[in-house]
């Protein structure tokens, strides 16, 4: 699963910034239930635990206000062959000019790109989060300078948190997706002025 996502390393031919895939043991929290549940009692937690027990989840994290809990099951491994214990960290795909990958048609609706601006696009489908949990500060914001390999955001898919790293060095000039909204493959996430 992770290899198929490391698009930039495999397809790039020019000596462009080449982010390395890295592994990390730190697990970003699952997106919190950000509803109005501000307080929760023991009975509620028990019922949540029972619910999670019945569901075929490997892991469950919950956070509300100050509270945070996490359930992890040691049942049969999940049927899909993904490293379930650790979040997957992946690089954003490198810019792929049309002459490099001719099989991918240029997106006809893409506006004319500003010179010097690189777009970090989503390598997967999922829900976009700017920070590791709702109370944390965003990984990056406009005006920040980022370097290759630096985590820019998290995309949640199939209950897994995937850290998306920058594939270039430069200044973040715009965050193109709202926090908590779905993104599709190839969707532009950040505009970065290279340099």
């Amino acid at each position, binding site marked *: 699963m992770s290899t198929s996502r490391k698009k930039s390393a495999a397809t790039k031919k020019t000596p462009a910034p080449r982010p390395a895939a890295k592994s990390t043991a730190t697990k970003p929290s699952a997106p919190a239930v950000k509803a109005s549940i501000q307080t929760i009692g023991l009975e509620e937690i028990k019922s949540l635990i029972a619910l999670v027990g019945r569901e*075929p989840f490997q892991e469950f994290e919950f956070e509300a206000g100050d509270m945070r809990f996490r359930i992890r099951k040691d049942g049969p491994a999940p*049927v*899909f062959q993904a490293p379930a214990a650790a979040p997957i960290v992946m690089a954003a795909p490198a810019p792929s000019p049309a002459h490099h990958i001719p099989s991918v048609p240029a*997106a006809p609706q893409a506006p004319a790109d500003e010179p010097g601006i690189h777009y970090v696009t989503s390598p997967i*489908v*999922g829900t976009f989060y700017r920070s590791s949990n709702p109370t944390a500060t965003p990984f990056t914001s406009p005006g920040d300078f980022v370097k290759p390999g630096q985590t820019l955001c998290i995309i949640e*898919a199939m209950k897994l948190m995937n850290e998306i790293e920058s594939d270039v060095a430069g200044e973040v000039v715009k965050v193109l997706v709202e926090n908590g909204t779905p993104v*599709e493959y190839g969707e532009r996430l950040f505009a970065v002025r290279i340099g």
Partner: protein
Amino acid sequence: MGAIKRKATPAPAAHIDAPPFKKVLIANRGEIALRVILACKEMGIQTVAVYSEADRNALHVRFADEEVCIGPAPSSKSYLNIPQVIAAAEVTGAEAIHPGYGFLSENAHFVEVCLACGITFIGPSAEIIRRMGNKAQAKATMLEAGVPLMPGSDGLVETVEEALVVAEQIGYPVIVKASAGGGGRGMRICNNAEELPDLYNTARTEAKGAFGDDSVYMEKYLLEPRHIEVQIMGDLFGNVVHLGERECSIQRRHQKLIEESPSAVLTPELRQRICDTAVRAAKAVGYYNAGTIEFLLDKRGDFFFMEMNTRVQVEHPVTELVTGIDIVKEQLRIAAGQKLSFTQAQVVQKGHAIECRINAEDPYKFTPSPGRISALHFPGGPGIRVDTAMHQDAVIPPHYDSMVAKLIAYGADRSEAIARMRRALDTLVIEGIKTTAPLHRRIMDHPDFISGAFSTKWMETFMEEMKHNPAGDPR
């Protein structure tokens, strides 16, 4: 690149029955993705299309309510990429996934992932798919259910003496096959006991050379079998009915080219027997969803189980036309836990339907012909159904299969269906790429096709004929 779009959809009208699902994701592309979208639209179900970067302008994307790009052009990175498909269902809130045919449709693992993620897979259980996908296990199940299997050796045949005994039991001609084999190598057809020892030894020697393994097994060899398959449908309440048979003998290298229903050669008694057997086979595995049991039929009216397909078939429209039953809508109802909407007694085969698969290929060499369709006109009028996702100026990407359209002709009888298929092919215009339409047009005029005298071997002899008469292209 665009964000995931939600299109305005008219509010469901009052008279429609409550849709079986609110939102369904279609994990496929091309005509079958569009076919499922049409069924969903008719039922008031919202649709989510997934697509690769090569399919950005495809019609299944245009006509779905929502669309999610799931990866680059290669199938392995998009349509076969399970995490991406599941994530697309999650972010759009789709309750169920229709897999179409091909891609993930018979992938038991994918079915399990759907289950684990709380998404309904529109198809049978992973267990059924595994069981019918494993050849040995499928055969054992069929044997138990009293479904006739191709007579053959019980496992490997170790010596000439054993080969002679087996051949005597199952009757000549027999075929000796390398158990590691494929592509015709390590394979010998024997007509009698005299030639068996030599051919048996040659097969082993060839198998050794080709695969490094000289183990062989034996089966009865049918000279000119017909491919007859039965459409069945089952629900979660144990109801299984058949929707009659399809004749799919016009095939090339196991790729079906033309399918029809009913078969021109089945007597009512034989039809009854084959269809009943198929229902028995499906019941034996507790089957639900649409499924197809494929048989080989020999000249004496004996038929033998080949395999079961646990998904909607490319050729399902011919059955829909003769029975009036919408197979895809029924799949959706079944997956939502509804009972079959009809009984066996309500299934009536009326008229005759023929399907020609129009592929983007050289009609005589079968080399793929991807490219841009510069002009397009699909035939219409009475008795013609076209299932396609093509449009003028569409570009056929080289990454996927080459089928551009299914042309289906319906008539009161086989003769009218053939006549309509002819004029449909005569009024089909596809410019910019080569297609197999001229080949189909010739087959429609061939005396063997017209009389129904063909087997799965027929295309070979027909292609030979074509070599000697290449100019006879009727277009």
